[in-house]
């Protein structure tokens, strides 16, 4: 495994009417890699997946899979499996019927198909749902059904469009781990779209950040987090987002620069260099988020320990970690 499924997008363009959904996108996904796409709503993430799947055609540019241009291949001939955000389960078929669908279409013998569907269901822990209809299952279960269906396709590429979006926190946490394990087992090239910070950071070998149809940065998650290529990426990845302060204000730096520092890189310290007033303390249980305001009105978000003791209205001092201050060009937004 891992030798198939290298994807190359070459200056892909796609517009819907006047909306430019993708604008000259180049992206390379290595064979066996899991690539995560993140970006605000409407930035073109789903469009990329749909183009790779062949559900939509580019206005310009090429899509190569293993070096072959696939533009002429209709979706049902591409060896691609997709998990849709809303799962797209067939409502008129039982869970088993949903799993068998593709196998039967590909003329797998009935008993063989049945065996494979059941084993995939077992693997994902939905073996006892097989006779239910999709609308009789919970969100988490549906997600697994959709995954099982995709597994049965045995594709060279998996496309996952926000597969965990509709799960609640505990379930999401558990399924994230399952997905990772699965990818490690199969080693199939995977492109994965998400809104979720934690998923973006943990699920992909590399992350691509999109904004309004353009790719802003591609790289391993930690690298993108630590060295955002521009202010957009800095503001988008991380929750709460990075504090962005004009140069010359509390963080120093010169004019024409914007300085950024992540909330966890500001520490409460009586000797800290920045004096701020606490506006709000959001106690998240496992940690606290302080929303603070400097004397010049600069707002700074601070991530502190679970029981940090600060109270709204109090004045505290913050110590920024100087190694982790980011510098951006105020004009272009690019990292300096």
């Amino acid at each position: 495994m891992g030798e198939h499924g290298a994807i190359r997008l070459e200056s892909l363009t796609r517009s819907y009417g006047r909306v430019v959904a993708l604008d000259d996108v180049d992206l390379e996904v290595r064979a066996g890699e899991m690539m995560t796409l993140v970006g605000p709503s409407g930035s073109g993430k789903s469009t990329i997946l749909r183009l790779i799947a062949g559900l939509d055609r580019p206005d310009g540019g090429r899509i190569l899979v293993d070096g072959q241009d696939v533009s002429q291949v209709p979706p049902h001939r591409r060896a691609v499996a997709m998990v849709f955000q809303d799962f797209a389960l067939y409502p008129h078929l039982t869970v088993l019927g949903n799993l068998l669908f593709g196998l039967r279409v590909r003329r797998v013998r009935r008993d063989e198909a049945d065996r494979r569907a059941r084993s995939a269901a077992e693997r994902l822990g939905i073996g006892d749902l097989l006779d239910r209809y999709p609308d009789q299952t919970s969100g988490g279960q549906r997600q697994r059904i959709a995954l099982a269906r995709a597994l049965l396709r045995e594709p060279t590429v998996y496309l996952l469009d926000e597969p965990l979006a509709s799960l609640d926190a505990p379930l999401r946490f558990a399924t994230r781990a399952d997905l990772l394990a699965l990818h490690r087992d199969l080693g199939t090239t995977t492109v994965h779209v998400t809104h979720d910070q934690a998923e973006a950071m943990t699920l992909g070998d590399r992350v691509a950040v999109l904004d309004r149809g353009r790719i802003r940065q591609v790289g391993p998650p930690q690298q993108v987090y630590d060295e955002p290529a521009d202010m957009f990426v800095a503001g988008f990845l991380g929750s709460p987002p990075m504090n962005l302060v004009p140069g010359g204000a509390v963080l120093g730096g010169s004019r024409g620069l914007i300085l950024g520092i992540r909330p966890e890189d500001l520490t409460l310290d009586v000797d800290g260099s920045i004096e701020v007033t606490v506006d709000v303390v959001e106690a998240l249980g496992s940690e606290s988020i302080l929303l603070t305001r400097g004397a010049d009105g600069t707002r700074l978000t601070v991530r502190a320990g679970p029981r940090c003791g600060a109270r709204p209205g109090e004045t505290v001092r913050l110590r920024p970690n100087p190694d982790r201050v980011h510098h951006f060009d105020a004009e272009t937004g690019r990292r300096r």
Partner: protein
Amino acid sequence: MTSDRGRKPLTAWAFLAPYAVAVGLLIAVPALLNLGYAFTDHTGLTRDPQFVGLSNVRRMLDDGFLLDSVRASAIHLALAVPLRLLAAVGLGLLLAAPRPGGRWFRVAVYLPTVVPDVALAVLFLWVLNPLYGPLNQLLGLFGHSGFTWLSDPGTARVGVALMLMFPIGEGFLVVLAARRMLDGRLYEAAALEGCGPFGQLRRLTLPLLAPVLLLLAVRDTILTLQVNFVPAYVLTDGRPSNATLYLPVYIFDQAFEFSGFAYGALITSVLMVVTAIVITALLLVVRRWRVLR
């Protein structure tokens, strides 16, 4: 359950009330009255019908014309309903997808529905014309000598069914709308599982449309059995040898032409029972489609 519970359902029934009143007054009462007349000697021309018990029923049991009529209706049902459904569903699905000029295609298909029955019948007199009609000329291309359509019971029935394949606008509209309601994502999912266009039709569209198709089938069955006779009446008027003497035609003739008002009322009740049986059978056959979920 306490009495004040379910204010919402109460409101719902209030919305249904006017309709229920209308149904009661305009359908239930007249229909029951009609049923009552079935056991009298009412001719429709006098005002003092006498109760005659089951004598109409007894007559009905050895009425050869009624037998012809039931047979004609049954064959008509078997011919026309599938044809009409096939046409409505096929064209609805064919023309549902957006495409340049698609609107005009849809208008064209809807048109025969608003063409008056007379005009349609007149046109079909020409279509079925044994010498000059396009249908026989078409058969001629295949070396067939053609039919004298309206003189043979079999071909006359087929001819009427062919004619009724045209006014399918209602079903067509409903299929169009229903097809548009289907989730496009399912088709994409199916395509990615290797399902080609034909497979999608067979495995997705038709099963997903099953409830609508059933509703259409039920409606068309009722229409075909009970209402859709006017163009046939104009075209063949029961000929030849009662092959197209559909039940409603026979009822119309009895009740209005031959002063058999009470007898017509009786056959009307029979027609209703027959329709109910057909519909129930239909519903039972397709029960496992989960259409009544």
